[in-house]
């Protein structure tokens, strides 16, 4: 394996992204460049899920402790990973709720 291939394996330019849409209870997986912003990943999620964006949708991490990414949408996947904003490439689209 040449040096470039090894580098590519260590730091892939594309990653597999998993997105759940909670309202529709659907999920999708697609490949995305690590230089794509979270906003771009969110936008592409609607296309891949074949659903329309709804008012009050929220983009968040998936998993046991989902965190809103609405303040980090300008970060690329790579930046979000390196800054510890995300720990993997699993996301979900949820609805904002009211309360308090």
């Amino acid at each position, binding site marked *: 394996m040449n040096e470039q291939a090894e580098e590519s394996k260590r730091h892939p330019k594309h990653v597999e992204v998993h997105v759940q849409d909670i309202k529709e209870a659907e999920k999708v997986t697609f490949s995305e460049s690590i230089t794509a912003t979270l906003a771009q990943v969110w936008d592409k999620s609607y296309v891949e899920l074949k659903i329309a964006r709804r008012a009050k949708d929220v983009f968040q991490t998936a998993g046991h402790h*989902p965190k809103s990414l609405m303040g980090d949408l300008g970060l690329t996947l790579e930046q979000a990973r390196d800054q510890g904003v995300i720990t993997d490439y699993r996301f979900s689209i*949820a609805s904002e709720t009211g309360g308090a």
Partner: protein
Amino acid sequence: MAQINESPAIDPAAGAAALEEDLPRVLRMLGATSIEELGWSRPNKLTLLIPISGVHQGNTDDYLLRLGFHAYRTWPPSAQFVNPETLSYSYPQDQHFVPQLTSGECRTHVAYPHGTNKIQLICCSATLEFYEIKHNVAQEHLWSETNNFWTTVNAIKRAMASFYQGPFPKHGQ
């Protein structure tokens, strides 16, 4: 669709049917084939028990969320944190089984006035109790019957991830 200032209508048969419909969809989305795989249990047709944890000051605390589906899906599920031994909630002795959540989208109260009673309130537009007490709510946050119970669990989990302040103190302490 839920309406502002309308009292939730109880319809256990519809609630059980809606849960039967939604459970496989939610399990599939979560990549699971059974509720047991996720640590959940369903003691009866209208109840789901879902463990939820929170981390505060380095400590992980475990809670048990009980969802009730007697008015579902026109209305959201009832949501209460319960004593894991009794699977119920009695104030004040069980208040330490409730996490302190202080999110603007989801806040917990261990004894919220409701008529002549005091109830546990997970103050969030995705819980039935929120409508039972006729809490103010913006039109865009009203529960829609196109939602499912994971909307409720997710709202609570999101508050747990970022706005968890530890458990309410044990009664008498």
